């Protein structure tokens, strides 16, 4: 039996939810600088509108 645990709510070209989970690199601040920016910006810039472009 196969049970689905999790699946994305919506596929988006851009406009994300929680980016901190993606860049799990060994480097020191890409996790606190790069990802955080993406998360905040897309949250505040209306992802739906961006996706329609």
């Amino acid at each position, binding site marked *: *039996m*196969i*049970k*689905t*645990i*999790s*699946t*994305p*709510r*919506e*596929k*988006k*070209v*851009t*406009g*994300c*939810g*929680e*980016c*901190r*989970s*993606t*860049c*799990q*690199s*060994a*480097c*020191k*601040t*890409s*996790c*606190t*600088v*790069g*990802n*955080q*920016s*993406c998360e*905040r*910006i*897309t949250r*505040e*810039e209306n*992802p739906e509108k961006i996706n329609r472009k």
Partner: protein
Amino acid sequence: MVHIFNFENYNYIYDSGSGSLHECDKDTADYLKAKYECGAMPALSAEKIAEIEADISALKDKGLLFADEVKTAPMKPKDAKALCLHICHDCNLRCRYCFADEGAYHSEREFMSLETAKTAIDFLLKNSGNRKVLEVDFFGGEPLMCLDTVKKTVAYAKAEAAKLGKKFLFTTTTNALLLDDDAIEFFNTEMENVVLSLDGRKEVHDAIRKTRNGKGSFDLVIENIKKFVRSRGDKHYYVRGTFTSKNLDFSKDVIFLADNGFDSISMEPVVTDIADLQISDEHLGTVCTEYETLCNQYLERHKAGKGFNFFHFNIDLEGGTCLQKRVSACGAGNEYFSVVPNGDLYPCHQFAGDKNFLMGNVKDGIIRGDIREKFASNSLFTREECDGCFAKFICSGGCSANNYNFMGDMNKPYPVTCAMMKKRIECGMHALARKKDGKN
């Protein structure tokens, strides 16, 4: 592609095309492995095989299994969004594994002037296009060695951003040695996130993170960090440790941190070529087993109501991330730059001081557009080794600097890092599943 894996007695199927995670019984896992990967086909009844095939077919129809993967190149944002501001290239600690040459970055120890810091802010604002929210990470060396400059830079950035209808989010990465009441109050008022370096158990921390006179720094920072975390409320912070080949039992360090009241923890594998500290092939088996041990303890704590946030087990498969991010990672060298004390620009802190990657300076802007173009073009699709990897849309192809430093090519993933990454992702998926149904 699908990735079939088990964590102890639990069996999972991750579909990288759809980003879906499924759980199945062992027979189904063995059948799928035999059919789509390798391994002996299990002896199953015709009814069981029909049941498995029906499940597969139903999920395929829903686009949740064997879904097509994205193959298109990412968009290339042209606007800057963040700076890593090396407010000083000096440090009050002498940590053996420091990638930054114990704060000096293989150059002279120096501090960024307020004028240069302001020019860096101007550079970011000028190059940020329509972006409303920008970010600055105060980095070093040790930023608390020049707190006054940090304070004045924050005040300047806020004022200039307000004129343009923009907003800054600030982060500081600190060793906490100078984290006094004044700094704590400032951080809690102005910093969106604070990253505090602490490696875990005293003996582990002290073996590497020493003061300039060669003594361990644990006793000098632990109470500062505790005091800060108690005062932090619900604002973001990470207590961030580094593990080396000297403490491959690093789950004990994570649990030590949790036992000390820290509920937001990260523990990174060291990035170094120092022979007796680096993580290499020979350590991978132990490291992967240790991640499993940590995952079990993480879930036990969660079940007991004493859960903590461990950065690398945070897998958000439902909210997901945007395609651009999934294929292009951190944005270093294109959306995000490091500024060293004299104002020179580099793709990120890991490249700081390497003249081959000097992109320009905050006064004159980006002079080496070719370097920016190169970084903007880096993606999953320029990393051939990533093509057959289940983890690619989660790790985003890894860290360019890490690839460059170990493999000599930003587009060649370092296999040791990949192996640890994949194990952490499997642990994260297991944790997600068990937390979700409460069966841990």
